[in-house]
């Protein structure tokens, strides 16, 4: 019991001291996961609306692909990007490996299917009358999608939150393409792995608490928004 209390005290000290290394880790985490989520929303939401509302060939196959993507192991997304960005790989000349940009790209691969899949479900779940009314309005394809996305927005927002929750908490992708370089590509999850391995449990716990608070903040905000709407 005394061990756990010591760990918690150490974690508290670390959190309140807010040292520069810790700040840079937090900042990079927000930057990488925030940017990946933004890309996920920009690409995934239109894709999800199309999947949820459209009547086109290949919709079933696309849906299966998105659903698979929702469950893709992060380390696999990291591996795919690693192969692409490796020195001899097709995009090796860009020199992006072990940079935050590579990390953003890897996490975006994870965020897109989540945003798309949750959005598709929300749009498909709208009353049939809403779909019929939208078709009745003689709008263009894009305008129709905007109306549907707005109608299903609590679901769309939940998709964005789920995407952020997934990428901020994953470790496989950022570790493989980022390399966990101190001060450059170290984020909360890779730092936790690092501290745990060094048996610096107080630091690991402190980082874990921050991660939890981050996820809680995003979801509390979303829940408040959705409750206000209902």
């Amino acid at each position: 019991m005394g061990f756990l209390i010591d760990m918690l005290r150490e974690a508290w000290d670390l959190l309140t001291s807010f040292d520069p290394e810790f700040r840079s880790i937090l900042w990079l985490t927000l930057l990488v996961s925030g940017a990946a989520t933004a890309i996920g929303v920009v690409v995934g939401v239109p894709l999800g609306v199309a999947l949820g509302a459209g009547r086109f060939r290949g919709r079933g196959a696309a849906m299966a692909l998105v659903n698979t993507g929702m469950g893709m192991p992060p380390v696999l997304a990291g591996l795919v990007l690693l192969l692409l960005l490796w020195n001899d790989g097709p995009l090796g000349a860009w020199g992006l490996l072990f940079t935050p940009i590579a990390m953003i790209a890897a996490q975006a691969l994870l965020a897109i299917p989540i945003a798309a899949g949750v959005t598709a479900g929300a749009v498909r779940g709208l009353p049939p009358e809403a779909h019929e009314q939208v078709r009745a309005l003689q709008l263009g394809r894009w305008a129709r999608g905007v109306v549907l996305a707005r109608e299903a927005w609590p679901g769309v927002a939940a998709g964005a939150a789920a995407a952020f929750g997934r990428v901020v908490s994953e470790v496989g992708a950022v570790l493989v393409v980022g390399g966990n370089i101190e001060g450059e590509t170290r984020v909360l999850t890779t730092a936790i792995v690092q501290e745990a391995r060094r048996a610096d449990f107080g630091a690991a716990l402190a980082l874990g608490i921050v991660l939890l608070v981050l996820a809680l903040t995003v979801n509390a905000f979303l829940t408040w928004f959705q409750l206000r709407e209902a």
Partner: protein
Amino acid sequence: MKVAITGVDRDIGAGRRLVIDRLEFEPATTTVLFGPNGAGKSSLVRILSGTLPGGPGIPVAYLPQRPYVFRGPARRSLLLGLDDDGGSRAVELAERLGVAGILGRRARELSGGERRRLGLARALAGPERVVALDEPFSDIDVVDRADVRSTVAEAIAGRAAVIVTHDRDDAAAIGDRLVVLVAGSVRQAGPVAEVLALPADEIVAGVLGAANLIPGTVQDRADRLVGLDAGFGVVWGMGDAPRGSSAVAVFGAETVTVYRGHDAGTGSARNRWAGVVEATRPVGRLIEVAVEVGTGRLVALLTPGSSDALDLHEGAEVTLAAKATAVRIMVR
């Protein structure tokens, strides 16, 4: 714009199919789609409007059977997809339909009738040359119905319009042509008065309820009682058509009493017309009697017993009577 639906053969649920070889809708003509529940009326207008595949693929102003109001104030749903001109038409229509006061409210605060009026204003405000309205007058109060009908009639004037209803009065008041749909196929199509007065068969007669529809001019009125000059005589009925307006009297064939001879004595029925039996035919378990009254033609429905007792044959002289309270007189 003339518009046609051709070669439709699709599942409409519950083991039924909608099968249409060809159905044309003329410009400046209002076609009323009539039929029992599940006949395929809604599927037909969905196909026409493009919300189901297989239609003509032209822009159609469409009011779904269950109009949907989107998130945000009702005003947003009213104006969605309209340009400035369309928007001001929509607001004007909303005013005439009595929903201008609800534009700041949200969807869940609206009643079924308010949603429908809002949807109507939106559908009618667009520039489309073809209009399809699925049950535009249902859940609209009886007192407002005539107003809503005349607003709709005005808004669709000059366009090809298709209106789904299962109300004979609506059909008579607003339709030029009547298409009777039964179990997924067109059973009869033609001018409204003709189809109402001469149902092609028993099934159509059963669906429509054999009816008399007499056009004329309102010549006299006292309180709610209206006298319509029908050419062959005056038809008294209930309604609020103003004096001098052109109107139509509608009453069911079952409300007409038949007397033998031209001397029918006295009675409380305000309407009495002398005529000659033109034809009789069985309609279900009843007998439909068509009677020539001057230049007009009226129908009555009798039981076989009454028909036999009166010895109604072609050429027999009869007097028809109908209570004014059974006759509705509506502006056209």
